[in-house]
């Protein structure tokens, strides 16, 4: 596939109200596909809202599970690919929860990614609630190879690098980033695209939860760091941008950041980071 239409569904969630959030997401999948979108991306923890704190223990669910099934119906009905965020309960061990991104397609559930880097500083308390995932995830789909990451993962270049080396063409970062962090993300989203010769779709939450004002500003970035589309700050928005994978080759000829990668340095990096 050469060009695909990607919808950035920048929404405001009702904290703790899965039913209303899932309903809202289903309606947006319908609207976005009507407007030509093939892939619809929602923010981090979009089924529940971000600041759920101890409510996570009652809101977390299996993946696949009830909310995934409801979203699957919509994905199937609209023949769309959908990515959304959910607190995921472990199917094996009680009390273990992940901060997860789910990928669905026109035939139903495809896979999931569990957030690797859980911010626990300042206003963030994710390690109190979640167990980190174990690996990056890249999914080979008819819409291209999609790599999934979540919010704070973007601060760590190895996440997107590893995805790219496993073939990801479009890096999808779902996020719940509050005001004050915007500057970081505006730089890092472009950097991750440039250093990996990859497209990057960033979808952030909006709305206010416990005094945190999520800034939106979702964007699709091309492999040389240029903005394809950018959503409004601070308000709900639904934007569709086009990803043309033919750009990947042109970008990697212009700035061959993957070709010039040095495995020897990565090995040294690994050794040097063992003990700090």
């Amino acid at each position: 596939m050469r060009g695909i239409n990607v919808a950035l569904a920048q929404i405001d969630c009702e904290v703790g109200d899965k039913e209303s959030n899932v309903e809202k997401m289903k309606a947006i999948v319908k609207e976005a596909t009507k407007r030509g979108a093939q892939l619809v991306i929602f923010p981090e923890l979009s089924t529940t809202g971000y600041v759920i704190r101890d409510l996570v223990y009652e809101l977390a669910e299996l993946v696949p599970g009830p909310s995934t099934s409801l979203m699957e119906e919509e994905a199937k009905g609209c023949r769309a690919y959908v990515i959304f965020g959910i607190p995921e309960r472990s199917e094996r061990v009680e009390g273990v929860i992940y901060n997860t991104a789910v990928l669905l397609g026109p035939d139903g559930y495809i896979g999931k990614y569990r957030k690797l880097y859980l911010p626990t500083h300042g206003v963030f308390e994710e390690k109190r609630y979640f167990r980190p995932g174990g690996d990056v995830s890249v999914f080979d789909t008819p819409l291209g190879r999609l790599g999934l990451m979540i919010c704070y993962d973007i601060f760590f270049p190895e996440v997107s690098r590893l995805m790219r080396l496993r073939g990801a063409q479009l890096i999808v970062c779902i996020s719940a980033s509050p005001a004050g962090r915007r500057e970081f993300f505006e730089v890092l989203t472009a950097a991750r695209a440039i250093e990996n010769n990859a497209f990057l779709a960033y979808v952030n939450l909006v709305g206010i939860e416990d005094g945190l004002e999520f800034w939106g500003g979702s964007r699709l970035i091309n492999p040389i760091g240029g903005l394809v589309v950018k959503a409004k700050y601070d308000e709900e928005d639904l934007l569709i941008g086009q990803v043309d994978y033919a750009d990947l080759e042109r970008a990697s000829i212009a700035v061959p950041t993957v070709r010039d990668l040095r495995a020897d340095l990565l090995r040294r990096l690994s050794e040097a980071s063992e003990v700090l």
Partner: protein
Amino acid sequence: MTVEFILFTQLTAIDLRLTSDILKLDWPYVEERIERFIKDYVRRSGAFGVVLGLSGGVDSSTAAALSSIAIGGDKVLGLILPEGETYDPADVQNAKLVADRFGFRAEVIDITPVLNAFYKALPIFDSSDKISKGNVKVRTRAACIYYYANKLNMIVCGSSDKSEVMLGYFTKWGDIAADIAPLMDLYKTQVRQLALHIGVPPEVALRPSTPALWPGQTAKEELGLDYDVLDLILYGLERFMRVDEIAEQLGLSVEVVESVKRRWLTREHKRRMPLTVKLEYRTIGADFRLPYTLP
């Protein structure tokens, strides 16, 4: 196609040179965020609007003005609550001036009879104990404001600023009592700048602060330093600067900065839920962690 880069804000500032410049923020952006916060909270709470105590000072004037811009003056009620001992006609006049300028309603209620009845009812009442007596005034105002809030289905918008709250320079369960405190992440001198930005008259925005517990009380006299200096000390402490670094940069003695730091740390009890003994599975104020509100 270009990527937009914007300047890093104070929130992430790590280069710390303690001058008044460091307290400058992007005021239109700050105004927008606070107004959005007030509007969103009122909408989600299902309240009709907000009620505030109006002292005629910069904090309450700014909180009321921002509320009025955010949700409309017809949904904002300012209560001017003077009492005989500290009555200053300029305060009432300033409060009314702000209400007029920002188009919200203001009512004057003289609380002197309530206070006199209160004093009379207490067998141990001692008029010479200025702080205990002054705190009764402040808590009486809070009771009046909450009466209006309950009766009119409004939320109470507090006007505490970060300087006062960090220093514990407020009355516990008094002026701090509110449902939201939209100015609480701004230092006093920052509130003054924001006030000027939104058009609060300079005579209100720059008027010296007083908690008005007793006649002639001023913040500077009690705290020993101007807010211009206090705010820079607090800003340094907020960003984990060492006391000696702050003292050196501001040309102050280590003892002075240490005393501000101590005042900040020893007032934590005023900023939290009352402390209890950890006895059970999840404890209020200790390990219950829940969202502030739910839909």
